[in-house]
């Protein structure tokens, strides 16, 4: 269950119960926050003030809460993207690039398809966003199937390509006339998502993301292809033995995972930015790893993880203004959360391993 670690070999790592996992993640987060407070006071700031202003910034008012929802929406998608790949035993580190490609495709559909009613235009831009990210993910998938190239490497390299490609598109072919700002023209009004809470930035995209979490759950736990994905992820040998086409699975999962990350980009375009800019994502793709890690690759866990990291992002700004603590500290605290969770999971895994060994004996060694 350790995010970056290759899974499948150590099958028993997923044996722990969900409740145990949630508890461990919770305590790890608390420990990380305490460490963060220590760090803040070591830097000479007031940790209580820093944290209270962060809390006010993320939950203190309707506006602040809406901001948390806005920040967590793309994280739900990228968290699902990483989790889906993980469930299949793959490590998708390309969410950032897939997000950018999805955003670009969504923007293109939003700008160049004209004269459509919103009920048709929005789904079309969504489809474009999904395809943009999905095809980008599929590249890494096919490199793995065809040449055995590690998706960990290829997805990271594809990130760089995607981000630079977007830079070019926004500065060149798709630039908004007359070409003063490096951004595209805004998407058609018919492509823009409606508001969720009047008077705030919270938008319908949040609800759509929740619908996708439901689909994510249905796919993995209620469908035959999803069962194949989970079997391949937990035990590749058993998948081969049952006749599951593992190569097809890799392609499919990388496409779907890419698509989910692409939807994060689409969401940013049609609900937040309205147009493509080079910095459409402040690292939502990479945060997806953390979200999925905190959430144990499970639907509800991903929502909780996205909520946590969304709140960090929303509250970070206020902390900077009110307590004068640099926003970079928020990144440090996020990193602390990841480290403590990974560490606690490793301890848990070791502990479970030992328990298992004591129970079953060491037959293999005889």
């Amino acid at each position, binding site marked *: 269950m350790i995010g970056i670690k290759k899974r499948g070999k150590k*099958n028993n790592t997923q044996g722990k119960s969900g409740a145990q996992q949630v508890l461990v993640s919770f305590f790890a987060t608390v420990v990380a926050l305490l460490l963060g407070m220590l760090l803040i006071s070591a830097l000479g700031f007031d940790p209580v003030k820093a944290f209270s202003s962060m809390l006010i910034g993320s939950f203190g008012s309707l506006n602040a809460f809406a901001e948390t929802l806005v920040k967590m929406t793309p994280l739900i998608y990228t968290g699902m993207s990483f989790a889906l790949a993980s469930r299949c035993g793959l490590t998708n580190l390309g969410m950032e690039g897939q997000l950018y490609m999805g955003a670009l495709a969504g923007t293109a559909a939003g700008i160049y398809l004209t004269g459509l009613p919103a009920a048709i235009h929005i789904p079309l831009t969504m489809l474009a966003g999904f395809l943009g990210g999905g095809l980008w993910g599929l590249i890494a998938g096919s490199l793995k199937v065809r040449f055995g190239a590690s998706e960990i490497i290829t997805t990271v390299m594809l990130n760089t390509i995607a981000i630079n490609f977007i830079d070019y598109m926004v500065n060149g072919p798709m630039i908004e006339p007359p070409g003063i700002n490096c951004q595209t023209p805004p998407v058609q009004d018919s492509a823009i998502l409606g508001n969720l809470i009047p008077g705030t930035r919270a938008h319908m995209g949040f609800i759509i993301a929740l619908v996708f979490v439901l689909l994510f759950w249905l796919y993995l736990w209620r*469908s035959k292809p999803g069962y194949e994905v989970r079997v391949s992820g937990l035990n590749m040998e058993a998948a*081969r033995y049952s006749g599951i086409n593992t190569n097809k699975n890799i392609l499919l999962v990388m496409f779907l995972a890419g698509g989910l990350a692409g939807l994060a980009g689409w969401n940013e375009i049609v609900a937040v930015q309205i147009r493509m800019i080079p910095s459409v994502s402040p690292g939502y793709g990479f945060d997806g790893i953390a979200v999925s890690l905190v959430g144990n690759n499970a639907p509800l866990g991903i929502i909780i993880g996205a909520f946590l990291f969304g709140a960090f992002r929303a509250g970070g700004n206020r902390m900077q203004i009110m307590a004068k603590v640099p926003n970079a500290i928020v990144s440090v605290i996020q990193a602390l959360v990841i480290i403590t969770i990974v560490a606690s999971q490793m301890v848990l895994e070791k502990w479970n391993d030992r328990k298992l060994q004591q129970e079953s004996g*060491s*037959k293999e*060694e005889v």
Partner: protein
Amino acid sequence: MSKILEMINITKCFPGVMANDNVTLAVEAGEVHSLLGENGAGKSTLMNVLCGLYRPTFGSIRLDGEEVKFSSARDAMARGIGMVHQHFMLIPTMTVLDNCLIGAKDAGKFVLDRKTTAEKLTELIEKYDMKVDLNAKVGSLSVGQRQRVEIIKVLYRGARILILDEPTAVLTPQETLELFEMIRSLTEHNFTVLFISHKLNEVKEISDKVTVLRQGCVTGTYKTDDCSVEDLARLMVGREIDLSVKRAEREKGEILLDVKNLSLKNAEDQKRLLEDICFDVREGEILGVAGVDGNGQSELVECLTGMQVASSGEIVYKGQNLRKMKTREIMSNGISHIPQDRQKTGLIMPMTLVENFALQDYYREEFGKSVYLNWAAVTEHSKKLIKDFSIKTPSELELAQNLSGGNQQKVIIAREISRHPELLIAMHPTRGLDVGAIEYIHQQLVEQRNKGIGILLVSTELEEIMKLSDRIIVMYEGKIMGTVKPSDITIEEMGLMMGGQALESIRAKKAV
């Protein structure tokens, strides 16, 4: 000659298993001493104790009469005991010299002293006539040469006692001869060699003495010159087999599976893993495949179940050739498979029993239309199987890893039998299980046979094979040594066939 090494009353227990039971072994300097035994007889455990990887539960080790305790392989190496493992521990992209430098303690403290090392190695190579190029990349060497590098590595680190674990398993006959020459030249220089093997002819040829292990105990130490290959076979296999399983004799059924001239080559080094395998399985019979582990049985089963594609030959089942078919096609065609490793292949350990029961049939209509997977139906099915096969589990939602070995195997057997196969391929179905579970699984297999199902039973447990099979084929290095009926063969003959002698040649020898 003096005793260079003594292992006295070594007992090694693993939870639930006694791998070595009061084993005593005395080795003299300059001799080749073989350890002979079937799989699981405790050879490897004993050697792992000797080279410091395991600590014995009881017992002591004496080197030159002085008691020693090793806590790591490094300790043992420091006292001159070096092991050459069956699976080489070399880095293919590095040169022979660099491989020898890894972990060597006198290769310079901070800067690698390549030159001195190279000189020492060259000296060794010339002394024992090993023909290895120090600057060659290990990846470009043949398997035999790689093994030589392993031996040089151990010698360079100062070993006086060499443990060779199944060294000929990976070699061609010619390479084996070269290895034997090297062993002889080493013993001439007063090195001691412990030779682990189950190949009777090789043991007879190379060793001065042989200690036979059976089920963790020593059956005896003998001078090789005093024993014939037949004696060794009997000592290794030992027991007389109880053939008293109750089952009706059946008339010969129709041929269900016909394997013709099946061959498989290793893509990497073109080594033949299977060679001209021919046999058939009939309805209502158990065909036993006997042989020591690693003689092509896994490859055979993989070819039959579509997990590997054989290089040539035919697998005819119901008028179709299965050779190039995909696993799913084969398995949905009335074939079930109990895989050799229940934990690595047969089950998904962190999944629930329900999810494990779904593994072979989840795609069928009865478990949900189209892409929908109807867990209610699978759960229903699982509950029935748990009851019918009396699987001990708190609930059908228990994780597979929390069941005992016997119950895990029952889950697989329940799943595979409930598919109503016509052909059942069962590999090591009782490995590592307790007597009760073994009994139960044997009953199930015989019951299926009596129903008219053809069973291919691969096992290294000779007793199991002799007891259950209607006919037996014996495999050795990817070839079939003979097809026999259990009633027509002696244990001694079985042992000889498992050790690499064809049935005809054994019988011919007897006739003379």
